[in-house]
């Protein structure tokens, strides 16, 4: 039988390389055993994060004093993990922040590990964080993975007298089928104003963008205009900060800078329509 027989320090080193990698991997068991990068399996730790963050937010007294609600607005963390570390460190220095809002494109490739990696950064925030789905989060099985890790694609919550409505506007991912965004759902959310002083709508793709389903642009804008309490529309997707009034009426459209731009906004809301934007560089 033609075999090599040797045993030496070299063999030990060779043997140790994969074993060292394995121990570096922490032998975290089943997470290492990946069936496909596109699988949608996740553990309880990385599951239902939107609800968990909302529960944490509900427990949180409104920080600061008086009427003002302050939160961080950013977007498009996709594959900018170094910047995510810096953003978290910077946000944790801020005072009187209620939560962080991330306007979509959590992932770049729609892979479930990317959602986990971003959560591994965001979990170090001292405040809850909330997301809306972006177009990159739809790639391959991404839409399902997003739902497994974070939760619903359309949802709303109330905090400090403010109703936040988060809506999936990534129409191009659905081949502009006239269903996304769900304008009927948006109407129903905005109509439910009992106990609400102001409303903020957040989505990934803004309605004037070519990736928004054009046949729904007017109905969407009309839905926002139909509620007198809507004070701003927040978007990501374009990666640069902007504040514009693209449609008739008093609603400003604010686009977040991406993580890569090393800047984020602190948005302060008070009164019925009053707001202030502060840019923070990190």
């Amino acid at each position, binding site marked *: *039988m*033609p*075999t*090599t*027989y*040797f*045993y030496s320090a070299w*063999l030990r080193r*060779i*043997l140790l*390389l*994969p074993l060292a*990698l*394995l121990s*570096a*991997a*922490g032998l*975290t*068991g*089943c997470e*290492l*055993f*990946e*069936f*496909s*990068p*596109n*699988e*949608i*399996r996740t553990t309880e730790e990385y599951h239902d994060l939107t609800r968990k963050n909302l529960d944490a937010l509900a427990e949180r007294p409104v920080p600061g004093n008086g009427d003002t609600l302050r939160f961080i607005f950013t977007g498009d963390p996709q*594959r*900018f*993990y*170094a910047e*995510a*570390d810096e953003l978290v460190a910077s946000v944790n220095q801020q005072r009187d922040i209620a939560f962080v809002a991330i306007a979509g494109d959590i992932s*770049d*490739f*729609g*892979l479930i*590990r*990317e959602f*986990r*990696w971003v959560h*591994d950064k965001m979990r170090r925030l001292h405040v809850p964080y909330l997301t809306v789905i972006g177009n990159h989060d*739809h*790639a*391959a*099985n*991404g*839409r*399902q993975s997003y739902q497994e890790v974070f939760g619903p694609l359309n949802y709303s919550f109330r905090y400090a007298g403010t109703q936040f409505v988060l809506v999936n506007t990534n129409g*191009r*991912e659905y*081949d502009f089928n006239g269903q996304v965004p769900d304008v009927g759902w948006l109407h129903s959310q905005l109509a439910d104003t009992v106990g609400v002083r102001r409303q903020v709508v957040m989505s990934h793709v803004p309605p004037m963008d070519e*990736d928004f389903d054009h046949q729904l642009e007017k109905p969407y804008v009309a839905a926002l205009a139909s509620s007198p309490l809507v004070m701003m529309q927040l978007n990501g997707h374009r990666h640069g900060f902007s504040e514009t009034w693209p449609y008739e009426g008093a609603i400003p459209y604010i686009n977040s800078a991406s993580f890569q731009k090393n800047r984020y906004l602190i948005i302060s809301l008070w009164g019925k329509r009053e707001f202030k934007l502060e840019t923070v560089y990190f």
Partner: protein
Amino acid sequence: MRYLFFILTILAGLVAPAHAQPGRPDSLHRRSWLLPHHVIGQFAGGQGMATVGLGYTSRRRLDLDLLAGYVPRRYSITPMGIFTAKATYSPWLVSLGQSRWQLRPLSAGGMLSYTASKGFNKTWDDKYSTGYYWWSAHTRIGGFVGGRLAYRLSNQSGRPARFISAYYELGTNDLYLVSIWHNIGHLPLRSILTLGVGVKVDLF
């Protein structure tokens, strides 16, 4: 670990037919080069939940394998079929004393895979301008290191010995490497690693 069940099932399925090969040709010369040298059962490693395959061995060091893996609907929008071509090189072959055991302490390899799944949202189509989604959700390139432990089943004179072996692969893929590339020190190495284990049974 509940996955052990799958591994054992694959193992049992492979060993049984391998023992029952009828009418093997007596001489290597009469064997068609097309006939695979071994069959494979694998678990995970990014190549499916349950994966079967066949392969060829060149000079006892290089294995060229073709695998078909399955991921059920439970772990995907629609079930995934993953088809993988894989090359594994094991430079060292160590007989453990006079026993039937043989060890390949280190293997290194690469693979190319194609994933078919009806439910995938496309990344290469005319939805966005060319290059917007620059990667394919279907095609993956991966690399791995690993090892393999083999047990000699037969050693008849004039015929090469048949082995049954267990191996593992610690690997990653192109998209994970792209993710860590610009984030060295911000994504731990372990976060991009995948592990697969499998069994190979020589047919001849």
